[in-house]
């Protein structure tokens, strides 16, 4: 009994976990699949996950989409001839659906020019009291001529079998069963990269690289000073520093923008790098880590005549790989994904200095009617951090976890 409960519990747990996993992953799956579609394939109701292309066959010298119809129990491959014909759909008054005549129970489908229109009309009253008038036609059904209501008319496209030109039928082109196959459009990636996204990719990489290196350097130096070097005013300064973490970026948006205008740094990649290499949070993180390293190690080295920088570089840095990795990961994500600041500071027209997030917005505007291209761009922007995450998963998770524990 307990064993059964155990397995049931497990089953339930896994069902929950897998359910959430699908929910979390689905947008990414959708992104990948859409990025591999061609432009016509995206606008599809109902939506399709797999990128599809129509099967095409050469008929009389032109490429045509292939449809498969079942005629007399045999599935036949057919193509549109380009001709169409108006059909009337006929029924009796008791079979008609007055709310939507297209949902009526139709007893005859005849080309409209083969039915004979009579002078008679029949007026029926709908449930809401409105009246609907129908024309009466003489229709020949199985050799018998009957008087029927014209429920609705519709133009139907002509299809012909590929292997036998005498086999023809008429059907609604919109809902006809088109043959399709899964077809990945890898070319989308090349096409999107060529729209200056390659430049944006390099820009983003460079900005991220320099911001990460810069933040590490200033944070390690600052963290060491705050944790290990005794000097006057240190604790006051540290409190001020800590306080600055609490000030949200929104307060700085306007003045920072004005400052960049003053320095003539707007529209320049430098404005994405230099202001962001000083981080109170990183300094704080490193200080918290350094403070836990035993003093004795350092004191011995200093007595031996090592300089502070030697101690820092030779002892502290190797000992604090996890903290450095955490900081590096946070600043990597921050720099790679930052959007508001680049949006303000890099002009829309200055495409050469766009980072990926900006390019994405640009794409989403100029390709508003081609989501496959937009999502290809999104994939290009999203995949690098995802790859880094997969490779350095341990540090990501530990870093986040420790941020919660240390506050």
């Amino acid at each position, binding site marked *: 009994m307990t064993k059964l409960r155990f397995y049931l519990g497990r089953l339930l747990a896994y069902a929950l976990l897998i359910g959430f996993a699908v929910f979390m992953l689905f947008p990414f799956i959708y992104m990948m699949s859409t990025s591999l579609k061609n432009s016509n394939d995206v606008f599809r109701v109902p939506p399709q996950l797999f990128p599809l292309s129509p099967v095409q066959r050469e008929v009389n010298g032109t490429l045509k989409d292939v449809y498969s119809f079942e005629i007399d129990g045999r599935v036949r491959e057919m193509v549109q001839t380009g001709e169409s014909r108006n059909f009337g759909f006929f029924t009796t008054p008791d079979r008609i659906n007055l709310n939507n005549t297209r949902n009526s129970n139709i007893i005859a489908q005849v080309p409209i020019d083969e039915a004979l229109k009579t002078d008679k009309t029949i007026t029926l009253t709908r449930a809401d009291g409105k009246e609907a008038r129908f024309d009466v036609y003489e229709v020949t059904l199985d050799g018998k001529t009957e008087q029927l209501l014209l429920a609705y008319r519709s133009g139907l496209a002509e299809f012909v079998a590929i292997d036998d030109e005498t086999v023809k039928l008429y059907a609604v082109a919109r809902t006809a069963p088109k043959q399709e196959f899964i077809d990945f459009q890898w070319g989308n990636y090349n096409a999107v990269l060529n729209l200056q996204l390659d430049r944006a990719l390099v820009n983003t990489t460079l900005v991220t690289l320099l911001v990460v290196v810069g933040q590490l350097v200033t944070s390690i130096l600052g963290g060491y000073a705050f944790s290990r070097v005794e000097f006057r005013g240190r604790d006051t300064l540290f409190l001020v520093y800590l306080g600055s973490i609490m000030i949200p970026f929104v307060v700085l948006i306007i003045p920072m923008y004005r400052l960049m205008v003053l320095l003539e740094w707007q*529209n320049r990649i430098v404005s994405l790098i230099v202001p962001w290499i000083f981080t109170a949070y990183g300094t704080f993180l490193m200080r918290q880590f350094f403070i836990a390293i035993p003093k004795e190690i350092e004191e011995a080295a200093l007595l031996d005549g090592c300089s502070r920088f030697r101690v820092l570089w030779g002892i502290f840095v190797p000992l604090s790989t996890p903290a450095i990795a955490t900081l590096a990961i946070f600043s990597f994500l921050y720099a790679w994904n930052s959007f508001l600041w680049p949006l303000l500071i890099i002009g*829309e027209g200055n495409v050469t200095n766009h980072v990926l997030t900006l390019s994405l917005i640009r794409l989403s505007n*100029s390709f508003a009617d081609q989501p496959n291209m937009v999502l290809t761009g999104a994939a290009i922007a999203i995949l690098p951090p995802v790859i880094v995450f997969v490779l350095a998963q341990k540090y990501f998770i530990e870093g986040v976890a420790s941020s919660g524990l240390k506050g």
Partner: protein
Amino acid sequence: MKRFTIFVILGALLVMSLPVVVQGQEITLRWRTRPDNQAEIDVYTTASNTIDAAWDGVKLVYEPGGSETAGYQDVLVTELEAGTAPDVFWIPGTDVARFASAGLILNLAPYAAADPEFNIDDFYAGPMSFLTTNPDMNSDEEVLWGLPRDISAFAIYYNAELFAEAGVDLPGGDDWNWDRFMEAAMAISELGDDVYGFGMNAWWANWGYFVNAAGSSFFNEDYTACGLNNEATVVGLQAAVDLFRSGAAVPWGTDSEPPFLAGKVGMFMNGRWATPGTLANAGFEWNVAPLPIGPSGKPTNWLFWGAYVVNAKTAHPEEAWELITRLTSAEIQGAVASLGANIPSRQTQDAIDLFLASLPGTGINNSVFTDGAAVGVSEAPLFFGNWPKIDQIYGQNITEVFNGTQTPQEFADTICDKVAAEFTAGN
């Protein structure tokens, strides 16, 4: 060793960033337009390259701006303030007043007067009269704010396959009025739950068509006050709201382009700018038809226009004027028009003929657009009012009308009070 390598690599990076300043001998002119899709970007890139190749001593840089939804004009204002805006740029007709009043764009009248080849009558008179308005009522200085890039008008893009399937006559003809329009929309929407008879997007010109077709207007005659407080507004909006409420139209606010391109919308009201994109993406038989005639009994449309204007801070005003005249030359306008995105702003017959012959082999009924432009109300810059603000207030209230939290009657009764503060006439 490792440390050494890192330093070497960092050093190499630093060295690579040393700028090697190469002073070009050519003047560089940057110019920008607002494209609505990639097809248009390609068109203007080609135009820029063509002019660049034929013009010695000047290097042209074309930069496509954001689309209409991305605050194109507002981005421009930021850049004008920061001093990073391009030398020549396009702005929609409605924004000419705002830019001119704020002193952001250059008065080109002196340059035009000095240019013997320039003739103001080559262009459509509607836009030109707005472009020569002096926002300072007390000044009689001659002004010219720019030259129209092109004009455009609305049309009904229709899915012929859906019309055939619904068994309704194709749109157009003499009796193409609201009755037939509504009937067709209803019939098509009955084809399925995911099929809509009609679709339009949510910006001003779309609901504006319904208001205008009923005989009302956004503004009074001299564009100094709101003109929506009348019965015609109620009639026009009521018709539109009923159409949307019946489920025959793509719900208000939803971009109608994806469902139209998916073949699920019978009629889609949009401008000429949508033609290249539809050609590229639509997998069904389609064409364009005039807008249906409303209760006013007259054909209604908009004459959209936008102008190339010059940055007031440009370092090369003469070259900028030259660029504008080259960009609006019959040759370039013809080339742009032949690619299908827009209609020339020159009313000369050769320009119109070039447009009518555009997109050969596609069967697109080009004359629908020129006919529409001929009857269209010119998109008006408000020299005596704050158009972005008015547009915003109109838009918010219209959304409430379509969502049912306001009736068309309430809208017509209160809207003019709400925007009264935004008109500055008489100040």
